[in-house]
């Protein structure tokens, strides 16, 4: 080997050999990482370095003098191994192929060859320098797997992905990116950030902002961002970007993810809108909404409730609904909650009152429902509370109007009732006046007779004069009629007084409190007050049982009686009109248990089957315009049932007409309605 090396031409070494230099060279070859082999022209191995031996797994003596083919595996070399020789002879060959180790394993190498020529230029040896590519190939394979994985990921990703390097060149995009941004293929494949931006500019709602963000990101390369990009066509992308940093902590660019969140946005928007609608309704609705727990503490409420009760949010959070409810409702409300809400889960309308912070009462209408938690346990109630003071006011006004209407109607009738005695009283007084004048002239004759008698001369003429005047004055008649006229006048004055007293008792002006009342007396008064409405069509029969005082608002109850009497009269008028008949109104009272019961029967036209359900409805009337407001029975019902806890019913009489039955508890049961 040293001889061979010693023959290397033009290598700067003396042919006669400088041992030192050769040893140096040999030492250098040994130190090389690459595997170095030297073969003769017949491909016999002349030299291998230590890296060769180490890599191929041979001892030096295994190889020296042997054919180099023993380390060749299946070269897997396109174009065949012959090219190596020809290439080498032409000056050198470089390429990758596979070799075989002593243990038979094949491995890839990068081979560089050179030829050594003699002084005539004829090849005398070949030098091969091989680098083991196993590690590199492994790395490459791993990398290609990584790449394949990455690409698969990218292509299957639902997000559009864009990767740019630090100098804003596009490194990668996936199809989804092109699809999402609606990029033509040439733009998608171009590597220019600028072109992309142009394409994008057309689509986003606010291009300025979009570009500003991009610029910001380039000047802050380490920032991670997440934002949303609204589109002109209504779509929305979510953009997520992060710096691309390799394992050496070197910044390599930036990766962008774009996710189409339009659907989510739409869903969010619709939820938001519905939430807004609900909230808006909740906040702005006139009816109050309130939720309480089972002990009655306020949990949640809307501004309408605060307005209704006049408490602040803070104050309400420490209060219960019971505390805002006047005492007299407590029992009734508890009963109501017990019987309806807790058993049925939902209540009917319930009317009660709240006491406002300023102490005033507000009538309300409540509809409540149970609230359940996730495990279906009742945890409270919610209710819709409506302020009905306006309705109450209207009802009161209507009530009042109806009263005025009947008072107006009555006024004429009462005027007639008073007018009749006034007439005969005044006629009688006129008669008495004339009678007195007649008697005065008779008395004058008596005076003369008296004077004549005193003077002792009573002539025939005197007594004749007296007789004549007595006859002229019709004394016989007068002596009979004057006492009658006086008695009748006194009786007439008494009749007027009775009517006036009945009216006064009937109207009970200003009386709103409930107190014990004699219902028989009340019925009598009502009959007097409306006598003029009744007497032309009906005779009245009364059959009053003994009644203890009934606790009631007598002015209201009187109104009920009056309405029933007038209705009875109207019903009878329908029947007797045009005949020479009169009907009968029968009024009967009895005590039944703890109730006073009043029956008012008429022999009138009766109530047709088809309207029986409607007679207590407000404004329902069969009477001609101007005859009745249709409020009478509705108010009667409200008074008897709502105000007094009684009942009012009716049924047809056996042969003709209708009987109304009013039953009132002796002690007021129902809470009094605030007016």
């Amino acid at each position, binding site marked *: 080997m040293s001889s061979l090396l010693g023959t290397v031409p033009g290598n700067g070494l003396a042919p006669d050999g400088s041992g030192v230099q050769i040893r140096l060279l040999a030492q250098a070859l040994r130190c090389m990482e690459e595997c170095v082999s030297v073969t003769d022209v017949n491909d016999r191995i002349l030299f291998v370095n230590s890296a060769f031996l180490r890599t191929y797994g041979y001892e030096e003596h295994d190889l020296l003098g042997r054919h180099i083919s023993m380390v060749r595996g299946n070269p897997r070399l396109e174009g065949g191994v012959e090219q190596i020789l020809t290439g080498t002879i032409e000056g050198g060959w470089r390429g990758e192929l596979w070799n075989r180790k002593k243990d038979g394993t094949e491995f890839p190498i990068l081979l560089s060859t050179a030829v050594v020529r003699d002084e005539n230029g004829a090849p005398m040896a070949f030098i091969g320098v091989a680098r083991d590519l196993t590690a590199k190939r492994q790395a490459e394979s791993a990398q290609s797997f990584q790449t394949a994985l990455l690409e698969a990921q990218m292509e299957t990703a639902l997000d559009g992905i864009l990767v740019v390097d630090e100098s804003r060149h596009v490194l990668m995009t996936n199809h989804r990116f092109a699809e999402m941004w609606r990029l033509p293929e040439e733009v998608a494949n171009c590597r220019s950030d600028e072109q992309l931006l142009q394409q994008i500019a057309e689509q986003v709602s606010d291009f300025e902002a979009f570009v500003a963000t991009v610029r910001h990101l380039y000047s802050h390369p380490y920032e991670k961002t997440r934002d949303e990009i609204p589109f002109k066509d209504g779509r929305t992308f979510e953009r997520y970007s992060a710096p691309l940093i390799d394992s050496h902590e070197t910044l390599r660019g930036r990766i962008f993810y774009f996710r189409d969140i339009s659907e989510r946005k739409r869903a969010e928007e619709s939820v938001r809108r519905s939430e807004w609608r609900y909230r808006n309704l909740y906040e702005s609705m006139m009816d109050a909404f309130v939720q309480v727990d089972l002990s009655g503490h306020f949990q949640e409420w809307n501004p309408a409730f605060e307005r209704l009760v006049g408490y602040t949010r803070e104050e309400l959070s420490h209060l219960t609904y019971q505390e805002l409810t006047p005492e007299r409702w407590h029992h009734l409300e508890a009963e109501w909650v017990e019987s309806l809400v807790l058993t049925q889960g939902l209540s009917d309308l319930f009317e009660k009152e709240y006491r406002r912070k300023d102490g005033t009462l507000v009538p309300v209408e409540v509809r409540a429902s149970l609230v359940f938690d996730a495990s279906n346990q009742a945890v409270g109630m919610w209710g819709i509370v409506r302020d009905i003071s306006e309705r109450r006011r209207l009802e009161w006004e209507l009530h009042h109007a109806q009263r005025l209407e009947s008072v107006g109607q009555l006024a004429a009738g009462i005027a007639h009732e008073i007018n009749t005695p006034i*007439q005969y009283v005044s006629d009688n007084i006129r008669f008495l006046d004339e009678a007195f004048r007649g008697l005065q002239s008779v008395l004058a004759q008596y005076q003369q007779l008296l004077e004549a008698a005193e003077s002792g001369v009573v002539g025939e003429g005197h007594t004749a004069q007296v007789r004549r005047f007595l006859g002229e004055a019709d004394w016989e008649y007068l002596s009979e009629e004057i006492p009658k006229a006086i008695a009748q006048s006194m009786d007439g004055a008494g009749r007027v007084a009775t009517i006036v007293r009945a009216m006064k008792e009937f109207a009970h002006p200003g009386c709103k409190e409930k107190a014990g009342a004699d219902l028989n007396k009340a019925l009598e008064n009502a009959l007097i007050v409306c006598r003029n409405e009744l007497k032309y069509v009906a005779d009245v029969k009364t059959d009053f049982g003994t009644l203890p005082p009934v606790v009631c608002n007598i002015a209201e109850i009187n109104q009920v009686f009056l309405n029933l009497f007038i209705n009875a009269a109207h019903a009878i008028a329908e029947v007797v009109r045009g005949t020479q008949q*009169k009907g009968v109104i029968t009024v009967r009272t009895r005590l039944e248990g703890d109730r006073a019961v009043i029956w008012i029967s008429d022999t009138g036209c009766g109530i047709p089957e088809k309207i029986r359900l409607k007679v207590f409805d407000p404004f329902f009337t069969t009477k001609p315009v101007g005859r009745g407001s249709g409020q009478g029975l509705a108010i009667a019902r409200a008074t008897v049932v709502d105000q007094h806890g009684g009942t009012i019913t009716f049924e047809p009489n056996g042969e003709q007409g209708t009987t109304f039955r009013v039953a009132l508890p002796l002690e007021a049961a129902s809470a009094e309605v605030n007016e």
Partner: protein
Amino acid sequence: MKRILFVDDEPELLESLERLLHPMRDRWEMVFARGGVEALAWLETKPFDVLVTDVRMPRLDGVRLLRWAKAKFPEMVRIVLSGYFEREMALGAAGAAHRYLVKPIDTDRLREAIESTDGNQGGITS
């Protein structure tokens, strides 16, 4: 002697009227009927020159009585004598009565009304 039928459903009114008109007994033959039905019976029984009636009465009111009388005895003087003026009744009586008198009325005016009214003239106009 004028034959006059007075009609009213209120007995006290009728009696006091009778007393008041007592001085007229020499000139008038007066009958006092309590209500329309009784008046009808009198009218069927004997002739009258003048009918003086109240309007609002049960069973047979003044308007019906006047109409009936007008049809049966067109010559008769028909006068309403009422405690008050009632538009509805006045209109109803309009074609059937010659005069509509409202109390209080003194004897002289009543006498004048009864004596001066000519049964041949038409009904009152309201």
